[in-house]
Every structure is written in C-alpha cells, then in structure tokens.
C-alpha cells in the first residue's frame, strides 16, 4: 500500500480547514455569479440604492436558507429571481404602493446623483431607467431579463412561471409599451 505521505499532514489539515462543505461552495459560486444581476433587477424596479441593497441581501439570505437544507433546487438562478420578485412585491405592499398609487404616476424614489455619477449612467440612461419604472411590473421584469440580462425566453418563462410563448408575447408588448413611453417623453419636451 502506498502511503500518501508526500502530502504533509500540516498541509492536509490546512487544506481541509480551507475546504468548505460542498453546498456552501456551490452557494458561494451562485452568489458570485448572480449578485450583480439580482441587485440590478431590484434596483431597476425600486430605484433606490439602499432599498435595493436591503432587498438583495434578503433574497440571498432566503435563498441560502433553502439551499442549506439540501433541498434540490432545479433552477437556482431562476429561484433567486422568483424570491426577488416576491420581495419587491412585499416591499410595495408594505409601502401600500400597489393599491394607492397608479402605475403611471409612480415616482422614482431615489435619484442619488452621487450614485449616478459613480455608475456613469448618462442622462439618457437615467431617463430610460425612469421610463422603465413607470411600466407594469411584469413588463419591467421581462424587459430586464430579456434585454438587460440577455436571458432566453425559456429562462424568462421559468422565472415568471409562465409558458415560454406567453413570455415571448409579453416581451414584445413590454418593448412596445416602453417605446411609447420614450416617445411620450420626446413629445412633451
């Protein structure tokens, strides 16, 4: 029998200490791959850096609670988006936004100029972001997923829990709605 002596015991201990359990490593990888996307998704729908940070942290915290139980999650990234949608809906419910404020007049909560500067978003993009936020929530979702994150319809269908064809139609309608909003902006200037 060949002993594994060349790998010194100290090194083996060090490596064992550094190695995380498998599910933890998998979630760490999922976090790294998705944190920008989930944050962007929430920020675009909420419009506030602080609230987007809070909600994004909650999304991953809830995702981790499910993940650590070892429960099999078939589409982990779609699952995170689903949690994000629920968190956003709950946030607006808490703010009583859905019932009281018509979609068209929903205001951008935070126009932190420092943030805009940091993220180098031009005025044209700020306007686009604002117009996007005036759209119906489902329209916002599909536009973000399709044209900002570049997801295929199949994936959008998993996230929105709708058939792929419905998702496709929604994307087209949402784009049309956004184009009309953008045109309105031009006309009123």
């Amino acid at each position, binding site marked *: 029998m060949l002993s594994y002596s060349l790998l010194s015991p100290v090194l083996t201990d060090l490596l064992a200490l550094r190695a995380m359990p498998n599910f933890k490593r998998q979630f760490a990888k999922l976090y790294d791959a998705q944190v920008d996307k989930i944050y962007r998704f929430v920020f675009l729908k909420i419009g506030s850096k602080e609230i987007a940070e809070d909600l994004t942290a909650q999304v*991953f915290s809830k995702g981790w609670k499910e993940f650590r139980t070892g429960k099999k999650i078939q589409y982990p990234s779609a699952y995170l988006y689903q949690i994000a949608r629920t968190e956003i809906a709950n946030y607006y419910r808490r703010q009583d936004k859905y019932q009281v404020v018509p979609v068209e007049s929903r205001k951008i909560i935070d126009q932190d100029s420092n943030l805009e500067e940091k993220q180098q978003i031009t005025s044209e993009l700020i306007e686009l972001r604002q117009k996007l936020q005036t759209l119906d929530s489902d329209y916002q979702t599909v536009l973000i997923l399709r044209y900002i994150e570049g997801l295929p319809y199949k994936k959008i269908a998993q996230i929105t829990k709708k058939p792929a064809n419905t998702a496709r139609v929604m994307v087209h309608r949402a784009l049309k709605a956004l184009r009309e909003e953008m045109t309105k902006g031009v006309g009123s200037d």
Partner: protein
Amino acid sequence: MKDRQLKKNLLKLQEIKPDKEWAFSVKQNILGQKEMERFHLLHLHGQAFLAGSLAIIALVFLAVFGTVFFKNNSLNSFSDVDLENLTSSLRGLETSLNDVTSYLKVTREPAKVLEVEEMVSSAIEEGSQFVAKTKEKTEKMDPEREGAREEVLSALTDVEVALSEMQQTKESIQQEVAGREIAELEKSALTEEQKKLLGEAKEYFAQGSYPQALMKIIELSQNR
C-alpha cells in the same frame, strides 16, 4: 426611438452594479465567519492573500505530482483513505483557485493586474497539465472501485472549472482595466510621445494583447 436603439440602450443598464464591498459583506454575513475572515484577509492583505493561495496551489501540485506520478503508475494501490486525502486535497486546491479568482475580480490597478499576470498564468498552465495527467491516471483505476474513482474525477473536474474561471477572469479584468484606462487617457491632454504610447497600447488592445497594452499604459503614466 427605434427598437434596435432601445434594446442597445437597455443593454447599457448593465452598468448598474452593486458596491463591491457591500456585496462581499453580504456574502460574509450569509456564509458565516470563516468566509468573512477569508474575504477580510483578501481585502486587507490582497497581495499576501494571493501569494498564500498561489503557494498552496504550488504545494498541492508538487505533493500530488510526487505521489501520483513518480511513485506509481496508477492509483490502484492507493488505499481508500489515500484516495479520500487526494480528493480532499483537490477540493482544497479548488478553494485556493477560487480565492485567486476572487482576488483578481477586485483588482483594478493596472500595475497590480500586470503584477499578478505572470504568477497566475503559470499556475493556470501547470494546473491544466496537472489535471490532464491526474485524470489520465484516475481513469485507469480498477472499475471495481468506481465510487472512489468518480469522487476523484468529480474533484478534478471542479478544479478544471476553477482553472477555466480563473483564466476567464484574468482576461476579462485585463481587458476591462486596459479598456477603461485607454478611454480615460483618450480624454486627457497628451504630449506627442504619450500619444504614441497610447497608440501602441490601443493597437495591442485591439489585438487582444491586454498585458502588453497595460505595459504601455503604465509606461505612459510614468511619463506624465
């Protein structure tokens, strides 16, 4: 506005990204204390952390190479405990590779990006050879020990993925940093000599030779 332009503008909203420190701190809080310490180290002592991770990678290469390749033709004579140790070492190796990738992701200074290029490139090259050769040995193992064989192969595949992520991250960070620096320098008032260096940097950049482009950028910055 035409749909094409609208889609193009929507894509630009990808520029919205969370604060990196915030993202790290959330990850630390969620994944616990050990992770927190690792990333704290990474933030505070980035270069030392990188050197430590690369040293561990090199040690694992050396130890596994020594054991597997010079002493034995196949892994058949390994006991189950030896194979478990090998799998555990490969898992540790994967973690160290991921540490290096995380470090690369937060490196934004051209000089630092260039500094780690050589170390990381050689780790990738050695790592790829290491994985290929170890896989070859593992595949020759006795089929009756399929469970242990699969464990080692799965760990090797994860190491392979970690190496590939490290390679991609290295290249994309070099591209991002060089691209950003070039864009900034283009807006600056430059002397003829500096303009020449910038032209050379742009040429390298266009050819996808990002380390060379970064060298020109650093040279230019030193002349400013």
